[in-house]
């Protein structure tokens, strides 16, 4: 059932030609490449931030336990909470960027190739 619908969507002659035209459009290649670059870049940021944090936990517990200034609050607390906030902030930045730029460009591209009904 699922397979039937899927092939139907891709193999209807005219549809397939229009899809190929989309894929051949230089704007499509540019948009997809830019989007992938942003995705990998942000993934790398959060991945290495977390791995770096874990390595600090493994190798230098004392540093994370060092108090900030005169108080008892340790360096590890803003770092850990900061990592949580970083995850939320990066997610928000990606969604804002995608909503503002990617969606509009993709919609324009699809409309040009006759997919306006699905571009919205």
């Amino acid at each position, binding site marked *: 059932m699922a397979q039937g*619908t899927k092939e139907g969507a891709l193999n209807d002659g005219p549809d397939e030609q229009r899809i190929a035209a989309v894929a051949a459009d230089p704007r499509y290649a540019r948009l997809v490449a830019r989007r992938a670059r942003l995705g990998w870049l942000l993934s790398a940021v959060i991945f290495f931030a977390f791995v770096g944090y874990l390595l600090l936990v493994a190798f230098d517990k004392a540093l994370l336990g060092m108090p900030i200034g005169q108080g008892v609050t340790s360096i*590890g607390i803003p770092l850990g909470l900061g990592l949580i906030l970083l995850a939320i902030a990066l997610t928000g930045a990606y969604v804002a960027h995608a909503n503002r730029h990617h969606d509009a460009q993709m919609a324009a591209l699809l409309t040009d190739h006759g997919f306006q009904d699905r571009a919205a």
Partner: protein
Amino acid sequence: MTAWLAALAAVSIALLPLPALAAALEGEAQRQPVNWVAILMFVAFVGLTLWITKAAAARTRTASDFYTAGGGISGFQNGLAMAGDYMSAASFLGISAQIFNDGYDGLIYSTGFLVGWPILLFLMAERLRNLGRFTFADVASYRFAQPPVRSFAAVSTLLVVSFYLIAQMVGAGQLIKLLFGLPYAVAVVIVGALMMLYVLFGGMRATTWVQIIKAVLLLGGASFMALMVLAHMGFSLEALFARAVEVKTQAALADGATTAEAAERGRSIMAPGNFIKDPVSAISFGLALMLGTAGLPHILMRFFTVPDAKEARKSVLWATGWIGYFYILTFIIGFGAIVLVGTESSYLDGQGALRGGGNMAAIHLAHAIGGNAFLGFISAVAFATILAVVAGLTLSAASAVSHDLYATVFKHGQASSADELRVSRLTTLALGALAVLLGLLFEKQNVAFMVSLAFALAASGNFPVLILSLLWNGCTTRGAAWGGTIGLLTAFVLTLLSPAVWTTTFNLGPAPFPYSSAAIFSVPAGFLSIWLISLLDRSPRAAVDKAGYPAQRVRAETGIGAFAASDH
């Protein structure tokens, strides 16, 4: 059916305060007196959700209604439901208890559980929505021969869900014994019965609304707790931490430590402790949490309840925001418990440990802050949380059996929507019974390793298959099915050989695999075997698989031809 629902609700309510059953466990130090406020709150929650289930049942006709709530959930609603799926009672009670005991270590857990979400968004969310329909196997098997990849995905889903489910059921039983003063077996049966009702009759629509309500209650309750803790401390985190260090120092002094030792022990809660011992375990644990999130079948399934990729994206943003906020609250609640619970002898037993067991820190704090009524509220929310998570898990396992195994593998895509629905309901019944049985069987087991195993399996099997099938044109049917299986098996075997299972659970002496998490070996094992097997694959099918990539890619990127929001 309405009568049936009402009867079952009546039975579960009638069971609750049954003194004869409660008496069977008299003498166990851990049991609390029957908690009427909590029970009332819980009954109110269950009544509300059953009413929603009834409404949802009336609108559940097609397979799409059952699996994806008709695809009409908004990004905001779905984000809340995802957060609801993810914020289990284990993370609320477990993390706040860990902070109560060791301070800082709890924060490491929280960050690990959160960092998988951005990665899920950046690499997978939109493509998942564009390619998938009901289960993540739709995406993983998109351009491949259906039977092998679907079978792998279904087996993997059942494995991951089973371990997660056992942990939740055992947790539920123990919690209810503590919170409501009910016997373990009764608690497990109630959870099993209610979970079956939500899934059987309401499907994804009811399950989603149960998740949303639960998420709102949990976030509201936790916000109130954190706010009250901060109010006690003049809204100063520094004052909260300082007071907590002082409490721990005093406790160490009372324990007979020297002044220097006591000061040392007091300060230790502000730094990482023994939670992570060596770099290998640290990275391994991090990988399992980070990549496992993007491989959990019940989370991935939520991407198909929204109409398009844009709403899928918004879902993740809302989910990440709510979960992150929740973990920050949990951190404050844990430290608040040190200050307000750790100093109050009525919450402690003779030895200075928490009454009712180690996981009760947040529950006692609720009492310290808002008296019996708020204690009842938080207890009921904790129970509701388990119920909701268990329903979500069951639905994803039932979908794997009915949609991936039955409809696609056995019936070659020729099953009718009605047949598929019938099979998923039968599976739900079987799973409900199995969950109750496993819950009873594993009562005494350590559940923490089952959760970590579920994450390791998801990170080593599902995640590599999804990523490589989405992003690498050279991936083949054979590579995905066998490589994924190798990743899954590696994680499973290494976990069996790890200290938590080999030594602690089975008492077999020193563990052959010395690390607590398998992910650092099993995730690369999954990726490498998919890559290598695909590379060596010279079968005719491999050519078809590779030729299918460009079309898949265009559709994943653009959403052209994505399954519509609704079936009708």
